[in-house]
């Protein structure tokens, strides 16, 4: 009851705030919010995307590609060698019938994908092509193929160092495998890196998880309805997210998480339709890529 009252209070105060923002000020309100976040995140963003001196190539891209290449070589091209094995695993060829009722390989994959597909694979690709041109697709495919080894490493470590609690539940992730793995090898700083990862996760959820998603959703909605102030979409999203996380409206979260696999199918289907419709231009990106052009 208390929670409900709080919820109503917060929502009503939000609407009061919105009411105070007059129509003439709406553009400036959006711009103000944008400016406030830009100044707060600016130094961090410019550090992450800082280019190598004398180039426009960001160091973070090299870091990710070097890591992915290292994992690919270290594990002997695991992403290609065990591709059939991966399919057989998901099909359940290696499942013990006595383990029926536990999380299946397919379920683990579907849940992992539902948290991954979206920001990078859908919105990110669109942004990359818009900025870098069609040649960017080549580099995304190349980085993606190498990135499979990174994902393999991440998931394997996640399972290897997961926590199994007395009541039978489990939890895992980089914060556990970083701290446990460092400790196991007698290295210092694991705890610090684990905490740093957790902080970055929270910041990432704010930027990538909320701001970017709300921004993209608003762009998609205005594409259909025409221009309207961005804070309206933002506030509606905030109320829904608040209801799910704080208010405990589990049903919304359950539905969205279960819809994601179908979104994946829809996404691939839509991409195929676009490729078929534009079949005469499909080979374009591969013929047009140039390393220099795409990197800068």
């Amino acid at each position: 009851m208390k929670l409900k009252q709080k919820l109503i209070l917060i929502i009503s105060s939000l609407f009061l705030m919105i009411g105070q923002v007059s129509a003439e000020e709406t553009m400036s309100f959006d711009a103000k919010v944008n400016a406030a976040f830009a100044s707060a995140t600016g130094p961090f963003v410019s550090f992450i995307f800082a280019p190598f001196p004398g180039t426009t190539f960001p160091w973070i891209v090299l870091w990710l590609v070097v890591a992915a290449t290292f994992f690919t070589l270290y594990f002997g091209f695991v992403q290609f060698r065990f591709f059939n094995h991966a399919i057989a695993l998901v099909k359940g060829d290696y499942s013990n019938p006595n383990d029926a009722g536990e999380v299946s390989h397919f379920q683990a994959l579907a849940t992992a994908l539902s948290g991954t597909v979206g920001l990078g694979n859908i919105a990110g690709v669109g942004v990359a092509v818009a900025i870098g041109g069609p040649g960017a697709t080549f580099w995304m495919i190349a980085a993606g193929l190498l990135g499979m080894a990174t994902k393999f490493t991440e998931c394997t470590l996640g399972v290897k160092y997961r926590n199994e609690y007395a009541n039978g539940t489990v939890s895992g992730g980089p914060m556990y495998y970083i701290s446990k793995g460092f400790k196991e090898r007698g290295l210092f700083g694991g705890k610090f890196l684990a905490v740093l990862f957790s902080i970055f996760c929270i910041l990432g959820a704010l930027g990538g998880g909320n701001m970017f998603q709300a921004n993209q959703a608003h762009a998609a909605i205005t594409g259909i309805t025409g221009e309207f102030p961005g804070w309206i979409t933002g506030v509606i999203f905030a109320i829904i997210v608040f209801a799910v996380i704080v208010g405990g409206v589990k049903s919304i979260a359950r539905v969205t998480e279960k819809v994601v696999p179908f979104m994946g199918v829809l996404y691939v289907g839509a991409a195929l339709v676009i490729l078929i419709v534009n079949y005469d231009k499909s080979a374009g990106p591969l013929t047009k890529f140039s390393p220099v052009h795409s990197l800068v």
Partner: protein
Amino acid sequence: MSSKLIIGVDGESSDNKAIEFASKLSNQIGDCELVVVYVIEWSPFSFQTNEENAQRHQRREEETTLATDRIVTPVVEKLKAAGINARGIVRHGNVADALNLIAKEENADQIIVRRTSDASIKTRIFGSSVANLVMESSIPVTVI
């Protein structure tokens, strides 16, 4: 040589018909063991949330304990009280597949199940568990 019969139960009162038939058959055979099986419907291809995955192992144990205590054990106790050699198994999975698999593992002679009168659209399209069992089973199936 001793015989082994599998009885598939689903916790409904109409299970009694299958149990009665199996008891009668067991008495006629003499040296016979009855294996009471309850299958918790579960698909490895359903979608789960992260939270559900994290708790799955615990939930599975709870479901198994609940099915054993509420459905299988009372039937086994009743059979034992009637002087019949009986034990129970609880397994997750597709009902038809799981019964068939247990029958193979146990090297059973026959599966006994009761008829279901479920007439949902799903049943009409994919067939009932009993119909699937009859089609897939590698040993004789008696449907009561």
